[in-house]
């Protein structure tokens, strides 16, 4: 079995639905040791640049490397914080303005671990995951997104 095959997938095709987020929360109601959930959602902005508006972002990734990197991030975060669980989903392909492209969900007995783990995971994803966003304008021209 190759190493990749056992890595948890985080990629989903297209936007992440709000209802999916609701269902993910619902699944945790049986875990009664959880006291706090922290959720981050990245939503595609209709930014205006030189009078052109972003209508969507198209995401691509170097998937095998991204999944290995996410595995490392997950191990690091679980070692650092007392978490019950962590779920990460990132879109690939086209996500329209107003839709969700990143969903990070951490749970813990206590709020500080959940909140800090979520926040740090988001930073590491933005910084370390080989994912690229191509901002597509309403006139079909594009530019490459940059993270800050």
């Amino acid at each position: 079995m190759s190493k990749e095959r056992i890595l948890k997938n985080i990629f989903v095709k297209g936007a992440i639905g709000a209802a999916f987020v609701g269902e993910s929360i619902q699944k945790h109601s049986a875990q009664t040791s959880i006291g706090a959930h922290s959720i981050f959602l990245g939503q595609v902005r209709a930014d205006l640049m030189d009078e052109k508006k972003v209508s969507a972002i198209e995401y691509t990734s170097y998937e095998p490397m991204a999944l290995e990197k996410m595995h490392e991030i997950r191990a690091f975060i679980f070692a650092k914080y007392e978490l019950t669980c962590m779920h990460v989903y990132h879109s690939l392909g086209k996500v329209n303005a107003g839709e969700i492209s990143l969903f990070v969900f951490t749970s813990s007995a206590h709020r500080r671990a959940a909140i800090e783990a979520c926040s740090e995971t988001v930073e590491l994803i933005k910084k370390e995951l080989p994912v690229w966003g191509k901002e597509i304008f309403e006139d079909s021209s594009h530019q490459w997104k940059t993270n800050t």
Partner: protein
Amino acid sequence: MTTTVLLFGQLQEITSKHELQVNEMADTHTLLAELSRMYPAIATAKYMIAVDKQIISGNTKLKDGSTVALLPPFSGG
């Protein structure tokens, strides 16, 4: 020996290639010189290099069958 080169984001756009095979490249410096000759825009582009999914810095020896990925600045999320 053969090396697989993967190009992403802007670099894929510049070269119109996602993947290419090159032969007899002993190390990453030699490989990058060759790529810059083939695609002059690579010489001025900003990217990191991963050899077999590990980010490297400095010149790195290549083995037969290595995969070298040229990674423009990440912009996920």
